[in-house]
């Protein structure tokens, strides 16, 4: 109560501070007048009486000072005075202010923008209820190098039944989905989910209801749609609920709309449909599994239990199906994988280094300036300011500077964030969530404060340490301005070089990796190839109809002028191939085994179109008709795995168990490995079968080699060709093959170009830093240089002396930095490709570049030092 009262009192005093100043002045003068009068009455002369009155009163100024302290928030008044003064000083030296503020603003902007990415991608919890309890469950097989393998519904049913640590498990997978609308058919992204998925994630529909178990069991044709689909296609109208969409040829009722921006794990779907979870046979392992842990169960406990469950389930399976483990991975780690995490932390660290270098430069600048202001400080000290007061003044100045920079930086960062959202790597998950939220603003504020303190601390410290008096008497003829501040500035240059080389080494390693990755032969020639995916209309229920359709489309496409050749494969880029049970006639007998491989139907001209080399045997031919013996082409990896050291041509295999009735295939050819999971991943075993002999998928990819360097320009003509054959076949995913391959590299390009950019900035700043130091050193040592020359030093000696100073500092910095770089390189080695973290070429090149830059930066001031005229230098005082 009293506290509040005092606070209010002081607050009002703050507002009326001028008026209150006048009041206390009046009061004191009345006091003195009364006292004088009394002394006069006691018989003193008026003069003596006035002196006596003042003596008994004590110091008038001190009284007022104490009075002001009691009256209001003294620090606030002092602060406002300091700020006003600081603003005046900053305005007086616009060159310093602009340079320093711009440098800091850039550093703060890049840091804030980078932090906004880190914040959205790594720090913000996933948008589900209690996301820390969510986990992905994967089927694993160490013997097959199978990681993040999908699971069958039968498996999941066993797991659910036996697990104590999981409250629930749900399954989902993308399904090929064709939407029939008023203006034709089109491919959309559909996801089939178990009805418990949304309750498990804790997601409530934005409108309508979620799926029920009955929906799934009775195979009701009901769907839920995404918020985006609802807005774009149905105008966001509430009539959408209960409306009907024709999906895969069947009318399906919309029962719910999901909240905006909702995604399941990494899938951005348009429609969701339910599936039953019960299976009596094991079936395909095609499902993603997400589970929710019971409260207070750890991932380790869950993993231990699931490993035991896996062993028990294994026991129920035939031998060939065994050897499967289960891995439990926190959902957040799946959504943003370890590579992306590491890369983002690395970039965050890099941009923080840039910030430190910028702060070091500005510190160095303000140190130089504070040495020049030594006389001002001496005068202030002489007038009664104590060291604390002066330090506070200096800190106010630098914090104010940083605050200006912070505001500019935040505005810049706002622009930067929009750029990142527009041009960032599309396959970086959660990038769409990047925004300038409170946490990001807080970060910008923290960075600004940190900058202010870092920049102000060194000048303040040297001011405190310096004896404030003598400089004023010396009249400026001082020894090159404060040895302690020189020492700090040299240390700053060393630190800048150390940080710069760490960044440069990192960038160098990434650039080298980038070259290696780009040099990889994907196993096909992507230039001038256009990809076009086509779905069959739902009326084509017979596989033979589909085969016929694909062949007719292929004929039409090949007839388009400018098309050199065209081929079909059901899916070229497979991120996560399934396992198959395969029975192979090996050299040493027939064996059944579980293999992780891809199996695709391709047309006869597929390999020729893509330019994949034939290593042995032959390609498919017209003779491989449905009634002819079934033939297959395998890749080199498959050949080496199943028939090591032997010619596989003429050998046979079948899908499924040895005694299953599935047909036997004869290997007729071996082709080179194609990197179909992205450039950086080794090719898996691949089997290709003839499109003519096998029932094809509902949707396939057409690969069209054109004579044009811009294959996309032909898209119109090619679409028309497809439409001539079948106007109800949805066409989608039209893109140049080079571009599709490039998407695998976007994250690497993002990392490499950002880190390179940061390190170039760091390099420039370090150069500016050392240039400034040597420049200043020359300017303050003019007399010394003149003296040295007067007693016989040659111009060359002076030049070497100045260059030597810079070189020593940069050498120390580089040496320290290399140690740090080799240590950090190991931590980030998983981001590299083709080079080791201690790549000698990168380390040497980067060191040489940095030294060259240091010498170049010192060259100009050193030249100036050479031209010092001793007679002039010694005369000037």
């Amino acid at each position, binding site marked *: 109560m009293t506290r509040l009262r*005092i606070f209010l009192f002081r607050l009002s005093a703050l507002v009326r501070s001028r008026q209150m100043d006048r009041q206390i002045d009046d009061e004191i003068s009345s*006091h003195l007048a009364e006292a004088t009068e009394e002394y006069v009455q006691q018989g003193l002369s008026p003069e003596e009486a006035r002196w006596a009155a003042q003596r*008994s009163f004590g110091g008038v100024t001190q009284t007022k000072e*104490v009075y002001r302290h009691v009256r209001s928030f003294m620090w606030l008044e002092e602060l406002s005075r300091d700020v006003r003064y600081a603003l005046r000083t900053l305005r007086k030296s616009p060159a310093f202010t602009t340079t320093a503020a711009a440098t800091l603003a850039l550093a703060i902007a890049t840091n804030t923008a980078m932090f906004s990415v880190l914040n959205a991608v790594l720090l913000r919890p996933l948008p589900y209820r209690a996301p820390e309890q969510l986990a992905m469950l994967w089927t694993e097989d160490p013997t097959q190098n199978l990681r993040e393998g999908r699971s069958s519904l039968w498996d999941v049913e066993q797991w659910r039944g036996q697990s104590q640590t999981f409250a629930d498990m749900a399954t989902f997978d993308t399904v090929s989905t064709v939407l029939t609308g008023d203006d034709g058919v089109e491919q959309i992204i559909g996801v089939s989910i178990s009805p418990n998925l949304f309750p498990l994630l804790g997601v409530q529909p934005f409108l309508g209801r979620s799926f029920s178990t009955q929906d799934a069991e009775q195979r009701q044709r009901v769907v839920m749609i995404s918020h985006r689909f609802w807005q774009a296609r149905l105008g966001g109208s509430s009539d959408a609920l209960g409306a009907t969409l024709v999906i895969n040829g069947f009318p399906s009722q919309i029962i719910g709309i999901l909240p905006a921006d909702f995604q399941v794990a990494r899938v951005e779907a348009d429609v969701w449909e339910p599936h039953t979870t019960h299976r009596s046979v094991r079936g395909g392992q095609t499902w993603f599994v997400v589970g929710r842990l019971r409260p207070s169960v750890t991932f380790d406990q869950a993993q231990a239990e699931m490993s035991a469950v896996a062993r028990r389930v294994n026991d129920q399976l035939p031998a060939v199906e065994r050897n499967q483990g289960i891995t439990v991975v926190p959902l957040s780690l799946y959504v943003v994988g370890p590579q992306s995490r590491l890369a983002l932390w690395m970039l965050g660290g890099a941009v923080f280094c840039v910030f430190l270098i910028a702060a070091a430069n500005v510190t160095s600048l303000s140190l130089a300036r504070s040495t020049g202001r030594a006389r001002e400080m001496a005068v202030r000290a002489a007038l009664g300011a104590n060291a604390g007061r002066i330090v506070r003044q200096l800190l106010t100045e630098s914090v104010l500077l940083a605050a200006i920079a912070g505001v500019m930086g935040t505005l810049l960062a706002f622009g930067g964030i929009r750029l990142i959202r527009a041009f960032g790597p599309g396959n970086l998950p959660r990038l769409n969530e990047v925004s300038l939220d409170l946490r990001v603003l807080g970060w910008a504020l923290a960075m600004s404060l940190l900058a202010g303190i870092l920049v102000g601390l060194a000048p303040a410290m040297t001011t405190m340490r310096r004896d404030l008096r003598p400089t004023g008497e010396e009249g400026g003829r001082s020894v090159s301005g404060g040895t302690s501040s020189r020492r700090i500035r040299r240390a700053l240059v060393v630190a800048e070089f150390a940080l710069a080389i760490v960044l440069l080494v990192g960038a160098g390693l990434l650039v080298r990796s980038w070259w290696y990755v780009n040099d990889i032969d994907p196993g096909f020639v992507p230039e001038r190839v256009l990809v076009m995916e086509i779905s069959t209309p739902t009326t084509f229920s017979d596989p033979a109809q589909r085969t016929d359709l694909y062949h007719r489309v292929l004929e039409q496409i090949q007839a388009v002028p400018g098309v050199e050749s065209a081929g079909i494969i059901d899916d070229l880029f497979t991120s996560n191939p399934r396992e198959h049970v395969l029975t192979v006639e090996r050299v040493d007998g027939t064996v059944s085994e579980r293999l992780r491989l891809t199996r695709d139907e391709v047309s006869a001209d597929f390999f020729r179109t893509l330019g994949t080399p034939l290593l042995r045997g032959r390609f498919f031919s017209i003779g491989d008709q449905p009634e002819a013996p079934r033939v297959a082409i395998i890749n080199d990896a498959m050949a080496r795995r199943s028939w090591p050291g032997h010619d596989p041509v003429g050998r046979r295999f079948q899908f499924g168990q040895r005694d299953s009735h599935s047909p036997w295939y004869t290997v007729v050819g071996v082709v080179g490995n194609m990197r179909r999971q992205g450039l950086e991943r080794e090719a898996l075993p691949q089997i290709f079968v003839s499109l003519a002999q096998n029932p094809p998928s509902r949707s396939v990819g057409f690969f069209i080699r054109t004579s044009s360097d811009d294959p996309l320009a032909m898209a119109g003509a090619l679409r028309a060709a497809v439409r001539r054959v079948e106007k109800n076949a949805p066409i989608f995913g039209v893109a140049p093959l080079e571009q599709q391959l490039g998407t695998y590299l976007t994250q690497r390009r993002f990392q490499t170009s950002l880190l390179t950019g940061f390190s170039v900035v760091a390099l420039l700043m370090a150069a500016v830093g050392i240039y400034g130091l040597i420049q200043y050193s020359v300017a303050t040592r003019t007399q010394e240089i003149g003296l040295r020359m007067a007693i016989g030093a040659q111009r060359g000696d002076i030049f070497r002396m100045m260059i030597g100073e810079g070189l020593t500092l940069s050498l120390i910095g580089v040496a320290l930095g290399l140690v740090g770089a080799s240590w950090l390189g190991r931590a980030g080695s998983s981001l590299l490709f083709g080079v080791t973290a201690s790549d000698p070429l990168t380390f040497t090149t980067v060191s040489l570049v940095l030294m060259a830059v240091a010498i170049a930066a010192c060259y100009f001031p050193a030249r100036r030092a050479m031209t010092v005229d001793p007679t002039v230098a010694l005369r000037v005082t």
Partner: protein
Amino acid sequence: MTPDKSDVLYGTLGLMVIKTLDALGPLHGYRIARRIEQISGNQLALNQGTLYPALLKLEQMGWISSKWGTSESGRRVRIYALTRAGRKQLHNEEAQWQRAASIVERFLKISENLS
């Protein structure tokens, strides 16, 4: 330091001020200062200036109030008066002082007897 004049004990100045206002009614600053000096028999080296921050503090605590008025010699002065809260505070502090003083007194007596 002169042995016959003691500095005003820190914190006791406030008590002296409210006691003075209690005894004499509303007064301006100079009168309060003179009164304190008189009562102490000029034993206190009161820097009269220190009175003003003390008055401000008391006013912030709500124990005294002030307004502009005229002195006996017709000058415009600020006149301070004890508030109801101030009177209560005075009683509290008087009691506390008495207690403290009597303890110290007893203590000193015992020490004298022992020596």
